[in-house]
């Protein structure tokens, strides 16, 4: 995958490009040879990233997060812990939020991936992005793309009536601040902007209490 023309030249772009060049290999997909000798096995995968089909030939070990950051050069999703504990890597796959660090790119062949870049643009913010700005829902901003993708997933889950640990009634799920706090527990903010993050999500979700 090479979409260099879309990215203005920056230190970040050059670093991402260097990593991509180093790891793309060309051996056939689904190779059955034992991986002890020679280059690591690769596989070809098509991901629909933010509405655009992208073909990747990747070392099978490549996580969805690394495919997005290092190969598609979408550096919005962040690598925090790389073990599914911090939520900075959260993206939407077929509309559902997941930790992109804990899944392999090859497992998502044909699926729709939405990253923060697909939710909104600087000149056309997603309502959650605008609300995070209005409510000061961050300090350093590192966790913010994951927080916003997770929040988009949370609002969809609430709309679908998916219960949570704090739902008093499993059958009648009501959107409350408590529900938001529980549902956002997989997204850590070391700056501690939690209360403003909840206010921002509540505003977009029309959640009063």
């Amino acid at each position, binding site marked *: 995958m090479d979409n260099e023309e879309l990215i203005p030249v920056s230190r970040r772009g050059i670093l991402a490009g260097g990593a991509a060049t180093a790891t793309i290999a060309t051996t056939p997909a689904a190779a059955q040879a*034992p991986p002890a000798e020679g280059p690591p096995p690769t*596989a070809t995968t098509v991901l629909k990233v933010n509405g655009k089909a992208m073909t990747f030939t990747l070392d099978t070990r490549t996580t969805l997060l690394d495919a997005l950051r290092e190969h598609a050069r979408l550096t919005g999703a962040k690598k925090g812990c790389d073990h599914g504990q911090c939520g900075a890597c959260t993206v939407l796959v077929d509309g559902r939020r997941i*930790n992109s660090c804990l*899944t392999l790119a090859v497992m998502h062949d044909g699926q729709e991936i939405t990253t923060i870049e697909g939710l909104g643009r600087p000149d056309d913010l997603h309502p959650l992005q605008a609300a995070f700005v209005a409510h000061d829902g961050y300090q350093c901003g590192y966790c913010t793309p994951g927080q916003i993708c997770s929040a988009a*997933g949370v609002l969809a889950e609430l709309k679908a009536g998916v219960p949570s*640990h704090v739902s008093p009634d*499993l*059958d009648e799920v009501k959107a409350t601040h408590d529900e938001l706090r*529980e549902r956002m527990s997989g997204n850590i903010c070391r700056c501690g902007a939690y209360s403003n993050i909840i206010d921002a999500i509540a505003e977009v979700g029309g959640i009063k209490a």
Partner: protein
Amino acid sequence: MKPFTYERVATPADAAAAALKNPKAKFIAGGTNLLDLMKLEIEAPPHLIDINRLELAKIVETDDGGLRIGALVRNTDLAADRRVRKDYAVLSRALLAGASGQLRNKATTAGNLLQRTRCPYFYDPTKPCNKRTPGSGCSALSGFNRNLAILGASDQCIATHPSDMAVAMRALDATVETIHADGRTRAIPIADFHRLPGSTPSVETELAPGELITAVVLPKPIKGAHIYRKVRDRASYAFALVSVAAVIPKDGAPGRLAFGGLAHKPWRVPAAEQRIAEGPKAVAQTALAGARTTPQNAFKTELVERTLAAVIEQAKA
């Protein structure tokens, strides 16, 4: 992470055949635990068999009034299923008490049963661990063991099983259905599915090499208060110190009680269930018979009793 080859299979029989061809291969579904362990090279399969496209993501009613939960049903979908919410609320509650929203969207029913312990020494390749490296010793016995087992442990391993879901399934007497690499199928009662560590803590379940879980079957619903109470170090997104899955009938009939956070498998003592009417002290006394604690985890015995008190109180409400 060690390099591996990868293939995607379309049917359970293909999955089983692929496993037969590659004895060291691992099945991958949600991957939330397996990839975590592969990054640390605690797991290093040379081949991954991706089973995500198998037709095992449905929940269907069984002839005898229960539910057959496909192995690939995601934790979120199982917890949110209308039939599970209504008739097996203890299972919904247990699932929702576990992990984070992102992980529940990915983690599967079968994978949840097969997740590995979060014992800190299992996760630390620089330290001995009989589960990770058989025969190397157990660092936890004299190490940091505050959250480790007080029941059913051995001098080889005091790890706990981390699942919440499995504790509710134990209370509900679920059955695990599998297919062998040669195509044979079998049904394993959940009581027998997970093993105690004994002298082989690296062998955690009854599954044979290459045997694939296809479904978990719940018997017909049990009426009563369905409760899952989990006590942990923070309010959300943490493993249990102690958890209780309970189904307590309103008419005073014996209920069901299974415990998490105490052992290498969900813990259930039928004799303790007969004593619910006598109160939490009596139940805890029977449930914890044979408990062996360390100075760090001795608090769990009292925490079991207090958690039971809260559960029994809630059941009366």
